[in-house]
């Protein structure tokens, strides 16, 4: 009771086109983000376990605190590549079946 099991991994990603180098993320999530010499974030691309609650919370702070909304936290259950390709939908039920 009252135990939240945190499984899986997350990754903090930045959209480099939206990012304007405000640097809020490095303040809000110093354990995940550090800045390069021009003030743009360098984020480790290795997934962080969700069990690391501190890191996850700072990632969420950084995501919400970004003035350009360029950051997003992606959760992943298995170490599979993220993709925007939707799975093929099941075939719709044929007309004959529906009338029965």
């Amino acid at each position, binding site marked *: 009771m009252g135990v939240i099991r945190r499984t899986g991994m997350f990754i903090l*990603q930045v*959209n*480099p*086109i*939206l*990012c*304007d*180098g405000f640097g809020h993320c490095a303040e809000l999530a110093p354990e995940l983000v550090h800045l*390069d*010499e*021009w*003030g*743009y974030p*360098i984020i480790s*691309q290795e997934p962080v376990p969700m069990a690391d609650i501190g890191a996850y919370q700072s990632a969420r702070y950084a995501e919400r605190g970004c003035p350009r909304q360029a950051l997003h936290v*992606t959760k992943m259950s298995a170490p599979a*590549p*993220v*993709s*925007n*390709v939707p799975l*093929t*939908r099941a075939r719709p039920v044929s007309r004959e079946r529906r009338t029965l």
Partner: protein
Amino acid sequence: MIQAHTLPRLFAGATNKPLSLTEHERMFEPSGDVSNLLEELDASGLVGRGGAGFPTTRKVDLLRHQRGHKYVVVNGMEGEPAAHKDNRLLSTNPHLVLDGAEMLAQMIGASRIAICVARDNPTVVNHVERAIHERARRNLRGPGIDLHTPPWRYVAGEESALVHWLDDNESLPQYRPGRPHILRIGRGPTLVDNAETCANVGLIGRYGAQWFRSLGTSEHPGTAVVSVTGAVARPNVLEVNLGTPLTNILATAGADTSPQAVLLGGYGGAWLRGDQINTPYCNESLSEFKLSVGAGIIAVLPRQACGVAEAHRVVRWMAHESARQCGPCAFGLPALADDLLTVVRGGRDGVAAIARLQDRCGVIEGRGACRHPDGVVRFVRSSIEVFAHDIDDHLRGGPCAGARSNQRFLTVPALEHEEELIWE
């Protein structure tokens, strides 16, 4: 019908003007209804000729299972200043490219084809326009073909920038987290393929995979169209059998027989040292040197040239061609160019610049929305490695004789003013 083991294939029947539809049909027989197009394409082992070398069947398979109003985009943008292959192909055999595009459209079930040629090449645009009109007059059934003319920029030929232009009239790359990513015009899934890839599909659809594999290596079959430039007696576009030793290609073009280095794959590519030019020209042999065929560019650098000075010119131009969307690319690439200039000038500052260059390469890599900064980083790293000897000379004394002379060998367009760059 073209015999299996003969070259040229893609340039068959090439004269100094494009083949008309009738001539094209006489040269290659009219494309019939090939029912097993997909199996033939799969068996042919064709990889994309635009630079990334992605297997064409995997792309087609991904798009085939999508729904919606699909598009096929033929990429004839030719972003690399040293390349002329798409232009040459579209101004000799435009109908072969269009045939291939129609076959791809048939495979994925696309309803429209967009062929993109940079508006800075009015001759090629005219040739393609004429070819499309010829087909329209013949009233060939099939999807409609549109000609689009985006502005010529280095990154405008990148696939997401091209789709962005077709979708929204801006030649800027898009952010695509995660691969594979399906590009869309409006909501329609879009297949983007290089013009040379389309021409190869046109041949595979006619003569089959067996015929296609009769040239090239087993891993990397077919032919490649290469543009040979630099210290060459006859700068030319050649169609070569994949796996031909690089020496033979250079000899055909009348190049310097003992060059200092050869740039492969374009300005986002890497250098091959002059003593390694016996390597067969195909991806599996070149991958030993961490090189690839890329966009089919072979730029020869002679012994008297200064490799560092040439690298600086290329990186300066590449930095200028950045779309300035992502910070690491917009600020990082000019910084790389400045560091290279410091190295060219030599002296004590140069030593620090080399160390900084290595650091900055590590910082910039993989942090852009497209692969433009990664290509520049690969080029800079390979320049540092291959011209290590030159760099030592520069750091010890002033610039070498090659850097001081005004002779330059790589083609680099003039830098335009930043405000004059046209993106739409």
